[in-house]
């Protein structure tokens, strides 16, 4: 059910808040979307007296397991935190003040595009159990697609909301950098991370975004919400770098069909080819610093060792999976003496170029439309080497580097597998993104 449908059901007394919560809690998780289900907490929250005007307080939802809910395990899908219980709730969880159905699976510390790097299990794509749901917010996307939750919260560092939304056929919004407080999100790459909703409709994404977009003094990068005037007509750019021959022809066809009748023009974002390399250097560098805290001293998994240095070495060797180790080490490498200029510094300068590309286009255009991913969901175990996995993010990382808002909406299917369309907007122009997204959504339903 959508948030809107539940609202109607509650209004017409078809069911109560507690009944709808129980309905979702009793559903069987056939896709392994959850790491933890929080039945007791959800029932407690559902029984609390509700303010009639506060819609989301009555709606059940799922939370990605790198976002803290007080008293509930927050594992980040890592052995490092497998028994860690959150001491406080994330700001977005407090603002929603809803009914938490459980914590959803992800790639370990949100590092991956398939949930295969999770310490616990791989989530299955609800449209084909042999395929991945995308990542890293794969559990959140699968939970929404399989209707194990009306909506879910995820995080997006390089496409981690939009890619799984695309693979599972749901709506996923990555808000403008600074629009939503990250307080209570376990940091991966602080200059890129953003929290956002995964929903069944664009309208639902708007509901949730309106609730969580807020300046928070606990996250210094969060800003007051700005509103750009609502537009009546839209000028849309189609960057040629995203419609290359390597993309799945069915994906291309579905995108072209979805934008038929809209005013579009071919454009160029010339530095797109450098985005992925720049992203992986910057994000791993930041991750190497952010994950230094998982040393076993204050919390988390601890190894047995004779002295302090071997305690660190062994604890971290035991705690992290291969992909996380790989990224911490890559980040350490590009920040190390002798390599800093060639890698980290260069990547930062390239980030500037990519941001400038977008700024130039947005002087003339309101939106940029691209496929969310070059392909539909791939098979579990299909991508074995790291680079082929990293390439899944090729159409999503630029948005994070430039701090822009973007949404992925389902626009069709290829062999029963969903295809996602990405709309990229100007900073803080989520309102107009929703407008255009609703227009395309409506067209695709017909």
């Amino acid at each position, binding site marked *: 059910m959508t948030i809107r449908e539940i609202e109607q059901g509650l209004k017409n007394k078809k069911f109560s808040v507690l009944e709808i919560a129980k309905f979702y809690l009793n559903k069987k998780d056939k896709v392994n979307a959850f790491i933890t289900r929080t039945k007791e907490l959800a029932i407690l929250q559902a029984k609390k007296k509700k303010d009639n005007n506060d819609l989301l307080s009555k709606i059940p939802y799922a939370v990605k397991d790198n976002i803290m809910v007080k008293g509930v395990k927050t594992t980040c899908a890592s052995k490092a935190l497998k028994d860690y219980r959150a*001491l406080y709730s994330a700001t977005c969880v407090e603002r929603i003040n809803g009914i938490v159905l459980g914590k959803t699976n992800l790639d370990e510390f949100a590092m991956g595009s398939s949930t295969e790097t999770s310490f616990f299990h791989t989530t299955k794509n609800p449209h084909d159990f042999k395929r991945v749901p995308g990542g890293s917010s794969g559990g959140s996307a699968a939970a929404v697609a399989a209707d194990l939750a009306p909506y879910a919260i995820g995080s997006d560092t390089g496409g981690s909301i939009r890619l799984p939304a695309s693979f599972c056929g749901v709506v996923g919004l990555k808000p403008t*950098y600074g629009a939503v407080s990250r307080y209570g999100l376990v940091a991966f790459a602080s*200059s890129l991370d953003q929290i956002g909703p995964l929903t069944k409709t664009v309208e639902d994404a708007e509901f949730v975004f309106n609730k969580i977009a807020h300046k928070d*003094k606990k996250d*210094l*990068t969060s800003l007051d919400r700005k509103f750009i005037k609502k537009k009546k007509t839209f000028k849309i750019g189609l960057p040629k770098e995203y419609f290359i021959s390597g993309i799945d022809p069915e994906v291309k066809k579905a995108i072209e069909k979805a934008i038929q009748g809209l005013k579009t023009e071919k454009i160029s974002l010339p*530095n797109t*080819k*450098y985005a992925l*390399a*720049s992203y*992986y*250097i910057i994000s791993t560098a930041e991750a*190497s610093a952010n994950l*230094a805290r998982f*040393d076993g*001293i*204050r919390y988390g998994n*601890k190894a047995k*060792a*004779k*002295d*302090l240095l*071997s*305690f*660190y*070495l*062994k604890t*971290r*060797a035991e705690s*992290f999976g291969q992909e996380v*180790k*790989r990224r*911490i*080490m*890559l980040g*350490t*490498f590009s920040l*190390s003496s002798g390599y800093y200029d060639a*890698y980290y510094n*260069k*990547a*930062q*300068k*390239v*980030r*500037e*170029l990519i*941001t400038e590309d977008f700024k130039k286009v947005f002087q003339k255009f309101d939106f940029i439309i691209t496929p969310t991913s070059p392909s539909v969901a791939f098979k579990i175990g299909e991508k074995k*080497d*790291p*680079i082929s996995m*990293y390439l899944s993010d090729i159409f999503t990382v630029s948005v994070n580097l430039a*701090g822009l808002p973007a949404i992925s909406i389902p626009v069709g299917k290829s062999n029963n597998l969903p295809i996602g369309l990405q709309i990229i907007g100007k900073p803080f122009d989520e309102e107009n993104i929703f407008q255009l997204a609703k227009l395309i959504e409506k067209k695709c339903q017909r």
Partner: protein
Amino acid sequence: MISKKQVIHIANLSRIEISDKEAERFQKDFSDILNYFDLLKKAKTFSNKKNDFCITNFRKDEIVKFPDFDGKGKYIKVQKIYDN
């Protein structure tokens, strides 16, 4: 190309113990990935200006009491790490 010795050095800096076999696997992975990163050499960069993500709106430091303080005086209690 990155040497196995370099990989072990980086693992040490990262405070992650790796086996000989792992070092060999990471050596291959990193060589492939760094090879891909070399694409950036072709990018014509010039600017040295700070990117848009620098925080300028710092708030004042204020002392907030830790709600469930477990320790003595200024010190927080942690688990014993090693014996003298």
